[in-house]
C-alpha cells in the first residue's frame, strides 16, 4: 500500500512537472525557432511573450469541437486521450533522481518499450476514426513507421541493458553512476547506440526529419486533420510529452541520468533532459523531411543491421570483461 501512495504522489508530481515544462518548452521553441529564422517570435503576451503558451491553450480550448458527421465517434474521441496517456505513461519508470521516480519497475525498459509501442493505437484510432483520406494515409504511414522504428529502438535500448546487466532503468542509471556513462565509454557500442536511439525516438515521436505521419505539406495535417479545440490540444500536448519523455529516457539510458558532480541529481537529470530536448528542436527547425520509403530504407538497411552489430559488440564487451 505504501508503494501505491508513493507511486501516486510522485506520479502526479512528475506529470505536473512535465506538463508545465512543455508549456514553457513551447514558448522556448517558438522563440528559438523565431531567432533561427531571424524573427522575433512571440513578444506580445506577457514579458517577452512568456505567457504565449497559455494564450495558445486558452485559444485552443475555446474553439468549437467539430466532429465529422461520418466519423467513428468512439475512436475519434478516444484517440487524443489515449495519446496523452501513452506518452505520459512512459514517464512512470524514469528516475529523475535516486528517489524521485513514480514506480521503480524491475522491468522498466520493457515498460517503456511496451507503452511506447502502444502509441500506435491512438494514432490508428485518430486516422481511421476521422474518416478522412488524408488522416487515413497519415495513420498508415504512422503505423508502418512505428513498427519499423520499433526494431532499432529496441536494439539500441538493449545495448545499455546488456552492458549494465539490468532491465530496470534506475538500475542502469545506478550502474552508470558507479562506472561510466554509456555514451562516453565503451565508445563503440555506446555512442552509435545513442545515435540510433535518438533517431528512432525522433521517428517514434514524429519529429522532423521523420514527421511523415503529420507531413502538413502533403497530408494537410495527417492524423490530426479533423481535430479541433481541446482534442487537438491533447494531440499537440502528447507530441511534446512524447518528445520530452524521450529526451529524459535518452539522458537516463546513455548519459548517466542523475549522475553528476557538484549538484543534486535532479539538477543534472533536468539539465541533460533539456539539452536533448533543445537538440531535438534545433534539428527540427533545421532539416527537411524524408519521404516514407527513404525512411523505411534508412531504418532497415542502416539502423537495424548496425543495431544488431552493436548488440553483438556489447555482448562481447561484457563477455570479455570490458565492464570491470
Amino acid at each position, binding site marked *: 500500500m505504501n508503494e501505491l501512495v508513493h507511486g501516486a504522489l510522485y506520479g502526479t508530481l512528475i506529470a505536473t512537472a512535465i506538463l508545465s515544462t512543455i508549456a514553457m518548452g513551447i514558448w522556448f521553441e517558438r522563440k528559438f525557432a523565431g531567432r533561427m529564422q531571424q524573427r522575433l517570435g512571440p513578444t506580445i503576451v506577457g514579458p517577452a511573450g512568456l505567457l504565449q503558451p497559455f494564450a495558445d491553450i486558452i485559444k485552443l480550448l475555446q474553439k468549437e469541437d467539430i466532429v465529422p458527421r461520418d*466519423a467513428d465517434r468512439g475512436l475519434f474521441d478516444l484517440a487524443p486521450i489515449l495519446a496523452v496517456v501513452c506518452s505520459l505513461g512512459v514517464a512512470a519508470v524514469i528516475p529523475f533522481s535516486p528517489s524521485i521516480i513514480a514506480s521503480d519497475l524491475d522491468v522498466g525498459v520493457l515498460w517503456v518499450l511496451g*507503452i511506447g509501442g502502444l502509441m500506435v493505437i491512438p494514432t490508428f484510432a485518430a486516422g481511421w476514426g476521422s474518416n478522412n483520406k488524408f488522416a487515413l494515409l497519415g495513420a498508415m504511414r504512422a*503505423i508502418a513507421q512505428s513498427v519499423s522504428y520499433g526494431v532499432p529502438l529496441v536494439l539500441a535500448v538493449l545495448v545499455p541493458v546488456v552492458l549494465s546487466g539490468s532491465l530496470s532503468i534506475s538500475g542502469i542509471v545506478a550502474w552508470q553512476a558507479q562506472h561510466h556513462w554509456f555514451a562516453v565509454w565503451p565508445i563503440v557500442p555506446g555512442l552509435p547506440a545513442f545515435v540510433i536511439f535518438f533517431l528512432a525516438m525522433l521517428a517514434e515521436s514524429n519529429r522532423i526529419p521523420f514527421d511523415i505521419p503529420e507531413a502538413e505539406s502533403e497530408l494537410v495535417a495527417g492524423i490530426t486533420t479533423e481535430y479541433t479545440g481541446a482534442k487537438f490540444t491533447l494531440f499537440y500536448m502528447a507530441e511534446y510529452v512524447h518528445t520530452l519523455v524521450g529526451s529524459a529516457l535518452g539522458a537516463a539510458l546513455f548519459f548517466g541520468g542523475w549522475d553528476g558532480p557538484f549538484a543534486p541529481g535532479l539538477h543534472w537529470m533536468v539539465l541533460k533532459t533539456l539539452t536533448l530536448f533543445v537538440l531535438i528542436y534545433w534539428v527540427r527547425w533545421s532539416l527537411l523531411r524524408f519521404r516514407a520509403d527513404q525512411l523505411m530504407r534508412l531504418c532497415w538497411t542502416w539502423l537495424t543491421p548496425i543495431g544488431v552489430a552493436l548488440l553483438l559488440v556489447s555482448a562481447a564487451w561484457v563477455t570479455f570483461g570490458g565492464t570491470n
Partner: protein
Amino acid sequence: MESIPFGLAALVTLFSALRVVRSPNLVHAALWLGLALLGTAALFAVLGASFLAGVQVLLYIGGVMTLTLVGIMITRRHDGLNVPAESIGHVRAGVVSVALFAVLAWAISATPGLDAAPLGPDATTQDIGHALVGTHVLAFEVVSMLLLAAMLGAIVIARRKDPAPHAVTHLHVPATAVREAAE
C-alpha cells in the same frame, strides 16, 4: 485483497475477448483484441510475472495487433469506416468454446504441483534469463537463428532496387484518353 485486481483484469479481458468475436466492424474487433491482450498482460503482472507482462505488451500489442491493423488497411478497400466482419455459426462456436474451456479447466486442475509456493516477483526475470541461456539454450538459439534469417530477408527486400519500369513513349495521347481526363 489480491483477487480484486485479478478479477478486474480478468473481467476486462473476457469482455473485450467477447467483443473481438462479436464486433461487426473488423477494425473495432482488432482494437478490442488489443484491449484483450492488454488485459492478459495485466493478469501476468498481477501474478508477479512482470517480464512476461512487458513482453506481452511489446510483442502482442506493439507487434501482432499493429500488423493486424496494417493487414486490414492494405487488404481491404477503405473508402469508408465500415469494414464488415460478420461471424457465422454462433451456436456451434459457443459449444466449441465452452467445451474447450471445460477441457482446459479440467487439465489445469488435474495438473499436480499447482499449490507450490509462488515465485518472488523479483526472481522471475533472472530465472527466465537463466532458463533461456541454460536449460533451453538450443531452442533459444534456433529461434534466434530463425528471427535473424527473417530480419536478413527483410533487409534484402528493402535493399533491392526498384525494378526498372518499362519506358513508355507518351507523346501520343489517344483522343479517348483526353476525353476521359476531361471528365
